[in-house]
């Protein structure tokens, strides 16, 4: 994953980084804040969402928000994308920002366990007590997913290791 040199980032570079990480709509945002009117992150009381986040990015103030965890509370619900009058796809900008944060390892600590589990078993969520629960309701102790399939686990590890996530050294 290409490292971002914070000290040298100017406004254009921040906007370009958002676009490169999947948030092309950043240049369309006109600060109307319709996105925030339907956003669960806003309703739940997190500090950084909607037009404030997008304005910080548009004006190149990336460094001062890089550690903010609000983006990691985004539910990816896409209410914002559904109603944005400029078709800026705000969800994609939030996730582009998340990917920029992830590239700096400014990651919510809660993200690590599912990541490691995904790499090891193919499942972001897994618990051994599930075997008992499954048998209790009359199912085989393990499903036919990657959890009991070595070839499938190798495939998922190949896909993760050979991309930018592998370069971050988290697995």
């Amino acid at each position, binding site marked *: 994953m290409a490292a971002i040199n914070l000290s040298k980032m100017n406004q254009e570079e921040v906007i370009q980084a958002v676009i490169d990480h999947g948030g092309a709509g950043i240049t369309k945002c006109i600060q109307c804040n319709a996105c925030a009117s339907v956003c*669960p992150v806003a309703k739940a009381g*997190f500090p950084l969402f909607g037009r404030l986040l997008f304005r910080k990015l548009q004006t190149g103030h990336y460094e001062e928000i890089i550690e903010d965890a609000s983006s990691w509370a985004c539910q990816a619900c896409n209410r914002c994308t559904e109603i944005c009058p400029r078709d800026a796809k705000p969800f994609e900008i939030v996730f582009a920002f998340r990917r920029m944060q992830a590239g700096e390892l400014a*990651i919510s600590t809660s993200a690590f366990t599912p990541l490691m589990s995904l790499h090891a078993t*193919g499942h972001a*969520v897994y*618990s051994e007590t599930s075997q008992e629960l499954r048998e209790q*309701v009359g199912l085989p102790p393990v499903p036919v*997913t*990657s959890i009991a399939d070595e070839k499938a686990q190798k495939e998922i590890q190949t896909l993760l290791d050979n991309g930018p996530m592998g370069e971050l050294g988290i697995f």
Partner: protein
Amino acid sequence: MEKCGIYLGCNIPFKAPDIEQSFNKVFPKLGVELVDLEGATCCPAWGTAPSFDIDTWLAISGRNINIAEEKDVDIMTGCNSCFGVMSEAKHMIDHDAAKRKKLNENLALIDRKFKGNSDVFHVSHVLYDRIGLEKIKESLKYTLKELKIAVQPGCHILWPTEVMEVKEKNSFFPTILKELCEVLEADVPHYSALNACCGMGAMRSTDQARSFGLFKTKLVNMKEEIDPDMIVTTCSSCYLQFDGAQKNLRESGEIDFEIPVFYYTQLLALCMGFDPKNVAAISATPRDQIIQKIQSEARLIKQEA
């Protein structure tokens, strides 16, 4: 018999396998054969690959969809998050030639090739759109007359409508789950927080207190406006939040009531007469009383001779 690839995800097989069993019971009874997707992985969850790199996300989703392609079936998923992640991935792959090229370069590393002939559906879409209300009605043994349901469709089945095969007429006033419950003859009144988020998922793992705050607002709105006998959802994440976090709120003294929660196919399986020991056996909020009430002699639907 129509076939459908059953994509389990993570929460259903490992946290709520009674939901998995309810799929195994209701779909064959409704004429849909479930086809296993061997070796399927996590969709991948929003907080994993999609938060790091789009191409890795598309590779993992593309691999899952490819497993269905190789069996010549569409994908059906019971988890809204899996549905959202894979529907968005499929939409990107279908509409962006460069992304599709990169996807196939990645899949070549594991000897796979994305073809694009399997679509992604949600359990409620298959029930509503492909099976239909009439067939569901014919399969019932018990009626839910005079029982009141609060429905919780969840977020990822509603937005963004652009990427979905089956759409609500108005995604901010969804009716599919309401109609699926009404065909069981239950009352399904509107409540004003119907389309609000339950706070599960990324928000709960980032900040539990704020997640529970959002959840409580919605739960109390249901209670105050319609006082339901049960909450019914078609999202496994919403299910875990309504069932589990409700218990947390009771234990911390924030609420003083209890509303049983079902995933829709669990309720449907009970109405078809299946054994709750298989299809509705695991919950943090007790359901025994309402299950007993549902499967009672008085609720038997009289079969015409």
